[in-house]
């Protein structure tokens, strides 16, 4: 299954260009380009060979860590990816820490008294937030908050590398990580809340209560672990989704991560970069899901025994 998925993804990434009507070279270079460039591209992509042979040549190169050289910027694709990837990882780590730090305690407060006033407010609020697309959240946050507070919100120059100045780096990432964190928080909160409510009705919780164990200890020690299976599964899908879907946040705020690079590469028809990033993102998504499946088995060993 896993091998099948990897195979289809490589074929998909490879075929992206062949999926479209028309001559690939014309699609990449546009109709106005010279025949010389077109011939160069043909040779570089090996377009004159049969398609299955092209695929194997391309796969062979990838196994050797060679994703090709961009036809536009003349730099190796792997180098471009390597400089963008850490930004994605940093955004992901910050936003996920924030999301979990908010979701777990708040879901517990809600589950303690379902349909209480706090639960009602949080549930209604999280449902509303769920319906706000990230691009609207960014535009409105920039309009009402970022401009007034002086939080960096636009221009490539506003992004500061981690190694140059870490305070400036955190400042420039504050708005995007906040938007991503809120998006994740809403999902985690809803999943964990409904699972906690179900778990708290189990007999062993009643048992623990009758022994006089404090509410706090019951929630953290007895209820959280069995309730977190769905949460972890959702987190896996969600983080994978951030890798693939967080591009709009990066694009709007000029954060030069993978998503931003992907969009600009698409705009430039820089085909090999698009191909490379699609491949890296897809493999990343699979690895993340794999990792979370593994963690779920540790958290709830019953799953692997079934």
């Amino acid at each position, binding site marked *: 299954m896993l091998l099948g998925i990897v195979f289809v993804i490589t074929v998909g990434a490879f075929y992206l260009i062949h999926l479209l009507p028309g001559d690939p070279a014309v699609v990449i270079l546009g109709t106005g380009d010279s025949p010389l460039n077109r011939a160069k591209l043909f040779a570089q992509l090996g377009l004159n060979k049969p398609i299955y042979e092209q695929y194997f040549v391309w796969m062979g190169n990838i196994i050797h860590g060679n994703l090709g050289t961009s036809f536009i910027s003349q730099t190796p694709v792997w180098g471009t990816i390597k400089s963008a990837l850490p930004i994605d990882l940093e955004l992901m780590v910050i936003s996920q820490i924030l999301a979990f730090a908010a979701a777990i305690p708040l879901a517990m407060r809600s589950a303690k008294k379902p349909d209480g006033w706090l639960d009602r407010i949080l549930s209604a609020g999280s449902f509303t937030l769920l319906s706000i697309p990230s691009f609207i959240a960014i535009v409105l946050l920039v309009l009402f908050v970022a401009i007034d507070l002086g939080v960096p919100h636009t221009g490539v120059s506003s992004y500061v590398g981690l190694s140059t100045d870490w305070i400036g780096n955190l400042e420039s990432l504050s708005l995007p990580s906040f938007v991503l964190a809120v998006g994740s928080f809403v999902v985690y909160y809803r999943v964990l809340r409904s699972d906690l409510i179900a778990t708290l009705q189990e007999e062993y919780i009643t048992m623990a209560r009758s022994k006089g164990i404090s509410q706090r200890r019951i929630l953290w020690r007895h209820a959280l672990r069995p309730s977190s299976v769905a949460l972890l599964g959702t987190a896996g899908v969600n983080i994978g989704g951030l890798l693939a879907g967080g591009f709009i946040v990066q694009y709007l705020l000029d954060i030069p991560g993978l998503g931003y690079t992907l969009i600009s590469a698409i705009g430039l*028809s820089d085909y090999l970069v698009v191909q490379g990033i699609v491949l890296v993102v897809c493999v990343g*998504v699979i690895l993340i899901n794999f990792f979370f499946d593994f963690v779920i088995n540790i958290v709830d060993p019953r799953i692997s025994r079934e």
Partner: protein
Amino acid sequence: MSSSPLVREMIEDATVRDTPPRKRRLGILFWACVGWLILNLLAAILANVLPMKNPFFQDYAVVNASPSLHHLFGTDDLGRDIFSRVVFGSRVSIEVGLGAMFIGFGFGGPLGMLAAYRRGKFDTFLTTFMYIFLAFPAIIATIAVLSFWTPRSLLKIIVVVGIASVPIIYRVIRTATMNIATKDYVIAAKVQGATDRRILVKELLPNVAPIGVSFLLIGVATVITLEGSLAFLGLSVNPPTPSWGNMINESRAILQTNPWLAIFPSVAMCLFLLCLNFIGDRLRSHFDVTEVKL
């Protein structure tokens, strides 16, 4: 498609049902949302007939005007009436949402039901195929295909998004059908010698339909969000055609001089999405109750 959290919750709910039963009544908020959606739909359909300003007319005498009686929502940087552009813009969102879901359900729905009913090799093959496609990030494929497939048109956007949504719809419908196909009344119909067609149409379809409808609504909301994202990348309909995404995107350059251009389409879009999600979610838990009671 797979990025919507509500979609994920639906899949989980279709697999394990342990949510506590909820109230039987749909509530006033539900009907308020239905009313708002109908109002939006009517406005979009009747936009040409209603006494509104031309959304393309550029009046340079009133550029970047604030809301007034003359221009309810103000005007944009080219002096166009924001109110009529918001109303006309809803057409793109509604068309993309419904069109893409029409394609998605047209293929994913029947295939999912057939696979769940027939099982066997057909099911194994199709399900493996769809799961593999689900692993490929649909959003990236959509962007890549749309950006290289020129010239762009509304129809192409609908087709690409629609096809990208097939696997997830297949998955939801298949799971829902499987839960029902093992029920006693379906087996009873089979024993009585009912034809496959009769079982599919008379026994399974009416019971899968409610889940399908609530998923459809959430799906439309997801597709509308996706269209908005595409607009920001310049991959939606070409200007000057108004769409909510296009308008919000255009507003970014003049955010400080004319915030109204950002606020009104944003609010319109969020309200529309909120109503769709709310109705879909409420219907889902509503039908869940009957499931538990059975």
